[in-house]
């Protein structure tokens, strides 16, 4: 490898198994998050994403305590929570405040207990950081087939319902008048959102998952007025941020404090935020003139 490339990609980057896993899982999660995230932003359901993430944290912690893969904990709790949210009609703005205040706080509290018990039983502390803040390098490569399958499922669902979903998001009344079952479409979308949240939680942690879901989508919506393009741009931004984040995290092993790499999640979230700020820049400059 030439010298400049070697300084960008740390020694052994391309040969490393965990790096391959991280790149695959990160890209998959970014594509699903970008696609689902665009609808989360236009439906005003970022809050639902955050709620599912926090509940996912409890699920991930329970999985750790039970000794099952974190993916299954995230998935089961997010999908279960999505079903409950649909049943109690949490979409209504009035219900949101209560849900955010009570249910989400409680979920993190439960996560705290489960993680404490887990770390005591297993006498490791790494899991707390992995569940809450994620670590792409720690993903078990054996779960890749499941991750890809669930991603494909979520993407297929979104593609299937995208037209009724768009009209329901624009105006539930217009959609209902056209005979669209607004509630069924909304519930279907919530399921796809739960899968996206679980994958994002696995990649960058339950607490930071919403950043991957909402950040690239919000950026894309500033750049284009067409839903198809917004999805493509959001997926591209998410993928660029995760991959670049992985490269930087790998390099950071040689940064201070030497011998301890910085968390991938930090780089991913920082890059997503930077992309958003850059996309907002033109509008901010215009306002100041």
């Amino acid at each position, binding site marked *: 490898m030439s010298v400049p490339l070697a300084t960008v990609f740390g020694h052994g980057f391309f040969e490393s198994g965990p790096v391959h896993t991280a790149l695959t899982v990160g890209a998959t999660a970014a594509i699903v998050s970008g696609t689902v995230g665009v609808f989360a932003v236009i439906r005003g359901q970022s809050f639902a994403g955050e709620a599912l993430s926090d509940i996912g944290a409890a699920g991930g912690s329970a999985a750790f305590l039970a000794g099952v893969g974190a993916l299954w904990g995230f998935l089961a709790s997010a999908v279960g929570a999505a079903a409950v949210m649909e049943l109690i009609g949490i979409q209504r703005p009035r219900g949101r405040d209560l849900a955010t205040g009570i249910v989400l706080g409680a979920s993190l509290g439960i996560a705290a207990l489960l993680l404490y018990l887990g770390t005591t039983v297993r006498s490791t502390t790494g899991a707390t950081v992995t569940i809450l803040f994620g670590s792409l390098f720690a993903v078990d490569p054996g779960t890749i087939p499941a991750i890809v399958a669930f991603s494909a499922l979520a993407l297929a669902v979104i593609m299937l319902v995208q037209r009724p979903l768009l009209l329901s998001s624009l105006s539930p009344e217009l959609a209902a*008048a056209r005979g669209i079952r607004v509630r069924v479409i909304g519930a279907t979308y919530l399921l796809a959102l739960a899968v996206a949240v679980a994958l994002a939680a696995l990649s960058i942690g339950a607490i930071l998952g919403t950043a991957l879901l909402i950040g690239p989508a919000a950026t894309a919506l500033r750049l284009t007025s067409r839903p198809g393009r917004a999805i493509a741009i959001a997926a591209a931004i998410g993928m660029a941020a995760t991959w670049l984040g992985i490269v930087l995290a790998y390099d950071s092993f040689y940064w201070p404090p030497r011998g301890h790499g910085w968390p991938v999640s930090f780089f991913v979230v920082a890059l997503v935020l930077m992309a958003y700020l850059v996309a907002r820049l033109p509008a901010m400059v215009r306002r100041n003139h």
Partner: protein
Amino acid sequence: MSAYDGTGPEEILSVEHLGVRLGGRDVLSDVTFAIRAGEFTGLIGSNGAGKTTLLKAILGLHAPSGGDIRIAGRPRSRRNPLIGYVPQRYLLDADMPLRARDVVGLGLDAHRLGISRPSRERTDRIDAMLAAVDAQGFADSRVGNLSGGEQQRVLIAHALISRPRLLLLDEPLANLDLRSGHEIVALLARIATEQEIAVLISAHEMNPLLGVMDRIVYLAGGRAASGTTAEVVRGDVLSRLYGYHVDVLRVHGRVLVVSGAAGGGPDGQSEHPVEVLA
């Protein structure tokens, strides 16, 4: 009277003895009227008179507690392609990544699953519809950035592109400035005549519609009176509808429906304070 009787244009909407109960309260009772193709009908009543409820019942979104609604002679059904609808106005979200032409396109096939295939024919149909509502100028703008009147045109095009026979509009003039309001009314009157569509438009103020209404359905207290404006907008007819004395005043070509103006009580004393009802 519900079927086409062979005289004049076809009856597109017939509402007979319709009652709607919501939350244990009779919002509408014994509402009867009919609209023919090409007719422009105003649905007039103050806030809470049941205008939106009536429109939603016609759309099949509220089940009637009694009576019958027929669209072009057939019982109404969910997703009736014969009906176009423009809901009560609200500003579309500026974050919505849709151009005016995308919203019109959703009027063609939003109920379908899967991804829409762009085609020459589809684009031509959308362009023609945008032209029919004078919206070519902002066809490629983001809907959330359009003015109220422009959004209204886009939503009318969205409702009309599936070629309905009946167009329902819920308070399309609310929140529009006077000039945009006039333009929308003129546009709707033109569409009714040119495309042989029955237009039913709700409003709490009848004056902007006086020049173009072929027929009026006046709602008060959950009941309705219908006919030409000359038949309905009369003191005796509206007094019977309201259940107390009201006067119809004509001032400078404008109509005001007023309660309590000229001693309506049994002993000549006013039972109600002076109030402009419509």
